[in-house]
């Protein structure tokens, strides 16, 4: 919010170009390398946002050409298939600085971070003196419109020139709709970690629904194809939550609101404020010097400065009620500068008595009262007076001897109960459906397309709230060959689907990665702290209605305990998945070896030795049983090109000398909408996402096969099937079923399927602000193995 306000006010005094010149460091145009990335970022963000709003699957092409290497002049072209901009709005969109709607709406949007496409027009003009060409086609018109956009820096307005109607073809096909922006800038193209290529690659990871092509100055083409047809969920904007409101903002809101009273203002202009809470807030915020009419009935525009300040303190939870004094009924009052309540303890104890004896023996009434005041955060004068009177009448004003002090202590302890608690006005959490996480399966796909590797684990945590702002953390980890094993893992940071490419070290998300002890999960971490090493990349995405950055450069997230804890928890969960994967890989390798041993090597030994000795080839079944002495499960999960199904085959071998009976359980992506097909063995549903088959008894040396197909998935959605068993004796290649967990999941599902009563009951949903709201136990959060599939 800060920038918008700043800019809005500054614009009145200074010319826009002057402002740009002064502030280009935090607008992202400070160095020639970064200017190029920023310009492209603005263009691509615009395209993605526009497509998302119009529900179009984005296809974006970015070209960078060197025009004049000596003077570092580069031409950029950004083409999208979005809705395009109607002719009459083009000037406004490209010429108006920072008046987009996104600066007022509270919702998750890419555009929180940047100056917008106007910045590109301006930078173009400032560095080359030229204009920016815009070609726009909207679906309802047969021809595109082309115009050059410049800025009239004196009047802070866009001016167009060379307007014409053109036919727009892309790859010989007529473009149905879209936008093409061509700008020339003073900029430098570079490769590496902070490059256009890396920005687009990261963008494609978190926008798996986008098809992105990049053509670099040497004509080299990089293409990141679309891996899902699913557009991100349309997000609703929400009203601000009191916890996230600052003084200036509240003042402005009070000025422009149409609500007749303060309490209706609080009730309807904010989220999370119930009728009761609105009234309570007004009561608590009321000042001694407030006008006679109660605050909640007053007109919002008539609220005085001190009262607004007081209201903000209530918003922040600094003002509240004291409750529970001497068991009296709840009583409203407020305390200024509240400290932590509860001193000196829950109950006045013997220890307390000892302290009082040692502190007050030989002292008098003034000391006793001072002592009480010192050790209590909240008290009422009248009750202190009561205590004072009692002591004076029974013991006198002192100085007291030991017996007298003993009596004083008794009265103090009886009359003075420090069990008062401080309470904030209770607010509801803001709604979290304003967030649009990428979601586990799509992150997985996005990562897999950008990095060619084996193991991917992704986790989307449940939404949480910090300072009134809903947020959600998502993490992904990709591990395996194709990445350098001896260097630090690659960190891919994102805020609201926008890649963060600079200031990695100072970012909250990086710190959360560094804080995790990766060694225990199988990654190297010299010194047990810091970024781990190994063939891996870690992705962290923060989706939030209000992303807090360390600086206006908007490249590193500011510290926030709640967000940090969420990110750390997500990392740890992912780490556990990695550990499991590594253990499993080791086990699989061992199993594979055993199979090679009995299928290939042992028969060869039998044949060769029989040949040399000229004796018959011995029967090996007993030797095999004695070598393996285990039950082994093998599982293949393969994509079937023809049927577009994911085929799964599970084989169980009994290589023991006894007969065995098992039930086999397999995970499948039921929640993700998959269907179970061609399941000839039958079986039954265990819980959502887990199927069970009861096998007939396996005699020594026997094997059994289960096959089925998963429909409704795309290629790469489901590449590994986890299997479990129920029965006696280990199965190599499967895990024993955790029955407790199954029961837990079953109970949870049962609870979820029951209609929720008391949805309107506020008290049941009230959450105190200061504690991190415990993550709602949603489905998806609890799985058999922690969310990895």
């Amino acid at each position, binding site marked *: 919010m800060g920038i918008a306000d700043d800019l809005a006010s500054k614009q009145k005094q200074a010319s826009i170009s002057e402002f740009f010149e002064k502030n280009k460091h935090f607008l992202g145009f400070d160095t020639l390398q970064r200017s190029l990335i920023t310009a492209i970022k603005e263009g691509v963000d615009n395209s993605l946002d526009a497509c998302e709003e119009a529900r179009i699957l984005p296809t974006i092409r970015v070209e960078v050409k060197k025009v004049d290497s000596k003077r570092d002049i580069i031409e950029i072209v950004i083409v999208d298939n979005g809705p395009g901009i109607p002719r009459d709005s083009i000037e406004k969109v490209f010429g108006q600085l920072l008046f987009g709607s996104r600066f007022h709406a509270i919702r998750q949007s890419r555009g929180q971070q940047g100056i917008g496409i106007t910045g590109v027009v301006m930078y173009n003009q400032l560095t080359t003196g030229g204009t920016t060409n815009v070609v726009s086609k909207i679906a309802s018109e047969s021809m595109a419109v082309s115009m050059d956009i410049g800025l009239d820096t004196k009047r802070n307005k866009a001016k167009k020139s060379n307007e014409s109607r053109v036919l727009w073809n892309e790859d010989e096909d007529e473009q149905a709709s879209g936008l093409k922006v061509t700008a020339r800038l003073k900029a430098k193209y570079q490769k590496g970690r902070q490059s256009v290529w890396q920005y687009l690659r990261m963008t494609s990871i978190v926008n798996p629904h986008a098809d992105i092509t990049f053509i670099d100055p040497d004509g080299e083409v990089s293409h990141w194809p679309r891996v899902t047809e699913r557009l991100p969920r349309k997000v609703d904007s929400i009203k601000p939550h009191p916890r996230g409101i600052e003084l200036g903002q509240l003042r402005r809101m009070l000025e422009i609101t149409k609500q007749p009273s303060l309490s209706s203002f609080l009730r309807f202009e904010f989220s999370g404020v119930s009728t009761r809470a609105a009234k309570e807030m007004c009561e608590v915020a009321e000042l001694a010097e407030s006008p006679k009419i109660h605050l909640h009935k007053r007109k919002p525009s008539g609220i005085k400065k001190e009262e607004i300040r007081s209201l903000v303190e209530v918003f922040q939870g600094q003002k509240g009620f004291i409750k529970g004094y001497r068991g009296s009924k709840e009583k409203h009052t407020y305390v200024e500068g509240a400290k932590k309540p509860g001193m000196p303890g829950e109950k006045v104890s013997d220890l307390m008595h000892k302290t009082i004896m040692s502190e007050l023996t030989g002292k008098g009434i003034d000391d006793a009262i001072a002592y009480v005041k010192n050790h209590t955060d909240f008290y009422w004068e009248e009750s202190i007076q009561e205590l004072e009177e009692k002591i004076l009448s029974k013991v006198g004003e002192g100085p007291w001897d030991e017996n007298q002090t003993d009596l004083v202590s008794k009265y103090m302890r009886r009359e003075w109960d420090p069990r008062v608690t401080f309470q904030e006005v209770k607010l509801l959490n803001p709604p979290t459906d304003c967030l649009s996480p990428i979601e586990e399966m799509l992150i997985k796909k996005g990562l897999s397309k950008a990095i060619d590797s084996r193991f991917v684990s992704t986790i989307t945590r449940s939404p949480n709230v910090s300072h009134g702002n809903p947020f959600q953390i998502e993490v992904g980890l990709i591990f395996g060959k194709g990445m350098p094993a001896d260097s630090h893992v690659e960190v891919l940071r994102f805020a609201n689907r926008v890649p963060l490419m600079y200031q990695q070290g100072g970012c909250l998300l990086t710190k959360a990665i560094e804080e995790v002890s990766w060694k225990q999960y199988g990654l190297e971490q010299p010194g047990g702290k810091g970024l781990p090493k190994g063939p891996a990349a870690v992705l962290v995405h923060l989706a939030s209605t209000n992303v807090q950055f360390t600086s206006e450069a908007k490249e590193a997230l500011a510290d926030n305990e709640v967000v940090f804890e969420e990110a750390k928890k997500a990392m740890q969960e992912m780490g556990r998945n990695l550990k499991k994967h590594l253990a499993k890989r080791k086990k699989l390798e061992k199993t594979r070896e055993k199979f090679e041993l009995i299928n*290939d090597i042992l028969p060869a*030994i039998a044949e060769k030795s029989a040949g040399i*000795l000229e004796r018959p080839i011995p029967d090996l079944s007993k030797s095999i049983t*004695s*070598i393996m002495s285990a039950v082994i499960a093998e599982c293949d999960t393969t994509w079937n090109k023809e049927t577009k199904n994911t085929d799964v085959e599970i084989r169980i071998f009994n290589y023991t000398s006894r007969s065995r009976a098992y039930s086999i359980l397999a995970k499948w992506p039921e929640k993700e909408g998959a269907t179970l097909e061609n399941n000839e063995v039958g079986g039954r549903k265990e819980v959502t996402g887990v199927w069970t088959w009861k096998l007939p008894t396996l005699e020594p040396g026997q094997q059994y096969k289960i096959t089925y197909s998963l429909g409704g998935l795309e290629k790469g959605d489901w590449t590994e099937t986890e299997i479990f068993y129920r029965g006696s004796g280990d199965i190599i290649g499967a895990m024993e079923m955790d029955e407790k967990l199954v029961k837990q999941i079953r109970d949870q599902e049962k609870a979820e399927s029951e209609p929720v009563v008391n949805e309107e009951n506020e008290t049941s949903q009230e959450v105190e602000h200061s504690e991190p709201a415990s993550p709602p136990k949603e489905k998806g959060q609890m799985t058999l193995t922690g969310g990895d599939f």
Partner: protein
Amino acid sequence: MSRVRSNEQTKEHLHKVVAEMYDKMVKGEAPTMTLPVRTKNNITFDSKLGVYKYGKRKSVRDATSLGSAKQLLRALHVVEFIEDMIDSGKSSTLREMYYISEGWGYGKFGSQNDSNNLAEDLEVITKCMREDFKLRPEEDGSRIIGNLTINELNRRGEWMRINARDDVGDSGYGVPYNVESEKLELLEHDIDFIMAIETGGMFDRLIENGFDEDYRCGLVHLKGQPARSTRRIIKRMSEEWDLPVVVFTDADPWSFRIFASIAFGAIKTAHISEYLATPSATYLGVTSDDILAYDLPSDELSKQDIQALESQKSDPRFTDGWWREQIEMMLEIGKKSEQQSLAKYGLDFVTDTYLPEKLGELGLA
């Protein structure tokens, strides 16, 4: 060697190895191969032979892991290969066998070291020699210079008389891989002792300085860890001509090991120590105390050096008091020196001063 077995005997011994595997499978168990433990913990001094031999400890390699199973299969391929060679009257080098194993499918060797070790395993189990197996090392033996005369059967089947001083160039007489009497005879000599030298540089220095003639000795270049044929010919010269043998090496733990393989028998070939070891050989230097006494240029002991010395402390071959002292002293000063560090005092120092002094102590100069 004097104990060459007949082809039929060799086959019979090899079949026993195969039968052990076969019988286990018939019994419904995993096939196995039993062989003596080949570590320093399983060599004992054979007082009758005066050398170190393998003790009684056996290890069983069974086919319950992929690695061991592959070893067994390889052994079978090797046995088959040896039988083929015996039947067709051919022989091959170990390296050739390694390449031939390319066609053995699952029985293919991972490295030449694997194939060498397996050949040794079979030698040890069957108590045959690799010559019985028609396998020979591709590593040639060493070089000899000195006034001694040898009769060697050349590849045309003619006996050639070679004097290792007059009939050879500067590189000396090249020792063939087979030095048994059917291939090589020791005819006559006019020397007082044999000196085995670790490095080629020092060997060449002594030749250039005419040391062999001045001190009436035969010089043998060991080329680091000496090949079997080198050790065998040293033993034959020492026994048949009754000549003392002195060993001149660097001063480091690896050189101590070289000496042990000449004098006591090597751990890897302890099954044939009595054919290869020369119990009468003496360690001339460079000794640990020489490093200090001659103030030789030296290097710090590496981690591996220290490890090797520590391990030698528990090696039964180094239990004698003099060796203990040498090892302890080297650990204490923490230094090692090369033979050629004697050049600190000039090129002639080794022949004019150092060796005469050392040989003098032994009564050889």
